């Protein structure tokens, strides 16, 4: 084979790595019964591919080739180490005597789901669920995860090591939960996906490129879930993420300043994401039972369908917030509902609701409650009160872009 040809094959190996490595890993974890062993086997399999594919050409089914190569490398390694550690002999023997596993598309899909559900097992801490999912399912490096969550790489690495140890020692099974356990377990998976998305979407951490990647990973996870397990709430979450993502370019100026929803240039919203999100939202809403992500997608859909803030169907939004509040009666949802009521019935009605909420005390240290109050006071021409509330919000705000936004609002009074 010519040099150019082998160079091309090398490029193909890289491509196969990008598209297949996580699937191959998911299957190897099932076959080998151990995360670390499977990661090592995955590494060895690709090393073998780099060596052999340029000489022998690309196999007809690269995925099956890699699984098989990884499995053999693992057995080989175990056999060598078994000379020093008797416990491994049994495992090596068991793997050797098993028949070569069939790697069909169906088994691979199941393995991907097994991996997702195992990484998001509720017996792991939420932090560990997020880190493990990003590492194992998405293939992000420990450094990238640490960077995205403003954590120390050693701390993230430690979290992942502990989570894997718990999976191994407590025998967390590598399986998709039974139908009867599915609602609760799926909730924990969707929560992890949503956390990842939000971290990428919120203005909490500096690097916009990193944050965009994180949201893209969350959306990719959402797509995998919808493709493999099309539960209505999974569809609702994907719709919600797509509809929010569609506004990414419009919600921040090139200088990194925040732009509120009603002031965004809606021509910069991504139409194809909106179309896809709306279709999915409709599908999720047609289910007999509607979950909280789907309701939030419905709210995002109403915004997406409006030409501008005034043309928004605010009565519909208030109704959706009523539904959401019944499902999850939290003060933050009550605050969002109050803001929608202000748009539907005028600022005075919204202000009365927010004042009542602040009086209950739970929101008194939440900066957005004070900034929402300030905004309504401003609209009512009560500049003094608006100033006081912006100052209260500024005293509580932690994120830099939000601080600058509040300062601009205060100075414009």
């Amino acid at each position, binding site marked *: 084979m010519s040099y150019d040809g082998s160079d091309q094959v090398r490029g193909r190996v890289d491509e196969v790595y990008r598209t297949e490595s996580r699937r191959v890993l998911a299957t190897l974890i099932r076959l080998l019964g151990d995360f670390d062993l499977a990661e090592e086997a995955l590494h060895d399999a690709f090393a073998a591919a780099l060596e052999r594919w340029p000489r022998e050409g690309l196999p007809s089914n690269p995925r099956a080739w890699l699984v098989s190569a990884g499995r053999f490398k693992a057995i080989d390694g175990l056999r060598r180490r078994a000379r020093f550690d008797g416990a491994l002999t049994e495992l090596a023997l068991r793997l050797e005597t098993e028949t070569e596993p069939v790697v069909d598309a169906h088994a691979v899909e199941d393995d991907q789901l097994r991996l997702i559900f195992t990484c998001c*097992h509720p*017996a792991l801490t939420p932090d560990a669920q997020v880190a493990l999912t990003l590492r194992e399912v998405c293939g992000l490096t420990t450094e990238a995860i640490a960077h995205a969550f403003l954590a120390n790489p050693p701390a993230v690495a430690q979290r992942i090591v502990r989570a894997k140890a718990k999976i191994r*020692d*407590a*025998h*967390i*099974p590598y*399986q998709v*939960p039974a139908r009867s*356990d599915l609602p609760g377990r799926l909730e924990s998976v969707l929560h992890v996906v949503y956390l990842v998305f939000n971290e990428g979407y919120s203005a909490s951490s500096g690097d916009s490129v990193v944050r965009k990647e994180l949201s893209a990973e969350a959306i990719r996870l959402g797509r995998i879930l919808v493709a493999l397990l099309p539960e209505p709430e999974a569809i609702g979450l994907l719709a919600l993420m797509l509809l929010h993502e569609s506004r990414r370019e419009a919600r921040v100026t090139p200088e990194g300043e925040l732009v509120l929803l009603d002031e965004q240039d809606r021509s910069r919203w991504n139409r194809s994401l909106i179309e896809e999100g709306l279709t999915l939202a409709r599908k999720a809403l047609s289910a007999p039972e509607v979950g909280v992500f789907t309701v939030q997608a419905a709210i995002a859909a109403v915004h997406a369908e409006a030409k501008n803030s005034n043309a928004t169907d605010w009565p519909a939004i208030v109704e959706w917030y009523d539904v959401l509040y019944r499902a999850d009666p939290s003060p933050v949802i009550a605050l969002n509902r109050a803001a929608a009521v202000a748009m539907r019935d005028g600022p005075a009605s919204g202000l009365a609701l927010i004042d009542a909420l602040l009086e209950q005390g739970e929101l008194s240290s939440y900066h957005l409650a004070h900034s929402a109050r300030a905004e309504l006071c401003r609209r009512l021409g009560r500049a003094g009160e608006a100033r006081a509330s912006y100052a209260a919000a500024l005293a509580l705000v932690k994120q830099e872009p939000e601080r600058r936004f509040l300062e601009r609002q205060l100075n414009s009074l």
Partner: protein
Amino acid sequence: MQYLCLIYSDETMWPKMPKAETDSMMSEYMAFTAKAKESGHYIGGNRLQPTHSATSVRIRNGNLSATDGPFAETKEQLGGYYLIEAKDLNDAIQVASRIPGAKVGTIEVRPIAPVP
């Protein structure tokens, strides 16, 4: 795979409970134990005397010290345990969730370490 299910609850609530309630809790425990035996999960289990009966024993510098009280003073105390055989953690969590104490306290599920 064996798991130890440690039953934690506020032991001071038991003496305050009306007799009818403690009786029904006892019969719930008996029913749970019977079911766990039937399903093959049960290996053993016991209720413990309250922590005022506990003695903590240590040897330091070769000297034995036995002190009054539990190892740790906590709001909820270890009041009993079940040793169960379960397929995996999911199975163990299912069994633990049926222990009557799960409704008032917390069940800590700990895998038994394999003999090396």
